């Protein structure tokens, strides 16, 4: 053992980095509250309007295109309507879009232009409170949208099984995964131009992740590539729950998002420490 040799010399005094306590004051709630107040006094119409986007897609694709598609045959051999096939995918997509928007553009703007975080961080609130607070607010908002859309699906008879109600927590998990990774990515961004690249990751996921048709139309290699991307796991998880086509593979999807959350939060914390404490 070599550690004992150091005892002759006083250990170099390193300033404590404070662990998580230096970043987190346990007051993420204050950040969430600010978000709610800003919503109430400001653009609640815009916040509300977010609900309509998936509904428009459901009408145009699920029903409009559905008249040409007819029914879709699931892996189990059961057939379901095209609208019932597309609706859960739209739920997952809107969870992704909302979470990514809130954790990237929104945070970026507040950080660089609104200077809102500067004011917050001058109080006892720490950077991790801000990060968790913003993520929680995004999840709250996403949860309300999801509930709204699930209600629309229920009314239109697109929830085919009782397990549909489990898709609400599933969507929150999906959103949490995207938001935590989004926040970690945003902490590296410096210009609007860099932010544009986020869209280049989102668009292919949206178009190819079994959103509008099953993966089976693709060659095997492409299928594997898509299966590596997060949105596909989200779509499959939610679709399984709303259609009642349950399979053990769904635990895999859940695990994928748990992994995203863990990695995203760990990364964000490291970055926040580098940005604000060092």
């Amino acid at each position: 053992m070599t550690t004992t040799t150091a005892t002759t010399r006083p250990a170099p005094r390193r300033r404590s980095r404070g662990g998580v306590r230096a970043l987190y004051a346990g007051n993420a709630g204050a950040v969430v509250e600010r978000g709610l107040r800003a919503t109430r006094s400001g653009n609640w119409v815009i916040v509300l309007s977010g609900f309509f986007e998936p509904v428009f897609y459901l009408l145009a694709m699920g029903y409009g295109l559905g008249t040409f598609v007819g029914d879709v045959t699931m892996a189990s051999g059961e057939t379901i309507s095209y609208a019932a096939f597309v609706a859960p995918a739209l739920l997952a997509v809107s969870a992704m879009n909302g979470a990514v928007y809130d954790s990237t553009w929104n945070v970026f703007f507040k950080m660089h232009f609104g200077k809102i975080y500067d004011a917050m961080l001058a109080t006892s609130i720490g950077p991790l409170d801000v990060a968790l607070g913003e993520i929680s607010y995004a999840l709250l908002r996403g949860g309300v949208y999801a509930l709204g859309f699930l209600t629309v699906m229920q009314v239109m008879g697109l929830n085919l099984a009782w397990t549909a109600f489990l898709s609400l927590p599933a969507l929150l998990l999906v959103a949490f995964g995207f938001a935590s990774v989004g926040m970690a990515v945003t902490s590296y961004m410096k210009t609007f131009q860099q932010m544009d690249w986020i869209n280049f990751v989102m668009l292919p996921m949206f178009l190819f992740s079994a959103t509008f048709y099953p993966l089976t139309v693709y060659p095997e290699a492409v299928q594997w590539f898509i299966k590596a991307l997060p949105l596909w796991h989200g779509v499959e998880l939610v679709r399984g729950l709303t259609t009642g086509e349950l399979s053990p593979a769904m635990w895999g999807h859940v695990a994928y998002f748990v992994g995203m959350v863990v990695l995203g939060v760990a990364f964000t914390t490291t970055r926040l420490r580098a940005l604000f404490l060092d």
Partner: protein
Amino acid sequence: MTTTSTPTPTPAAQRALAAGALPRRFGWWYVAEAQLRSMKAYGWTIVASGVGQPLLYLLGIGLGLAAFLDVSVAEGPDGPIDYVTFVAPALLVTAAVGVAMDEFTYAVMSGFKWRRLYYAPNASPVSPPQLATGVVVACAGRMLFTVVVYYALMVAFGAVGDPVSGLLIPLVGILGGLAFGLPVMAYSASIEDDRGQFALIQRFVFTPMFLFSGTFYPLDSVPIAFQWIGWISPVWHASEIGRSLSYGSAPGSWPVGVHLAILLVMAGVGGLVAGRIFTRRLRG
């Protein structure tokens, strides 16, 4: 007839009259030049989205969705049309409209408000209508790049019936983009505060226009209650022209002249109103 003796201008006035001549004619171009130069800052975004978007949409919708559809969705003059051939002109038009959405909303507002960029040329000989024209010309330039790339990829995907007459499709795309963009520009120039109007335009104008303009299936196949969205949508009118240039008009479709006239009126009126609003705000 009255004869008024015009006094000879003083040397100072003469110098001014000489210096004003060029900007009176080409002021719009000077503005366009400056706008294009500042687009260089996000040049890579323009190139990447200009190439990437058509590639993704043509793959995802034109080929992926087409492989999944087992019935024919649209008819040409001589029977069923490949799905990708049907969808491609509408996707191209939507790309041009997307550029308009980029260049005529926040960018215009920041010219007046956040960054006050329009007030710099305003103090130069350039007039407000010239300023507005320059902004439009530069945006049309960006659209030109986007739609030409789109068209090239459409041809590569075999998504154009007649690639020769189809060469006009990019121009139709720009016209569609401006028919949407110029009224939006007029609106953006008129608002004083951002209270989320652009987000609402995105959600309640742009997205429905993309989805309900007969983009993915013929407009007459949707319930009549939704068809009006197509009738007032530049995307539908421009797509219909594009389709007839690509593979000919489907039986029972509107005459191309009508679509063209509607687009020209939208762009023309939008442009005139925008010019007026630019003048009002910069010359109060």
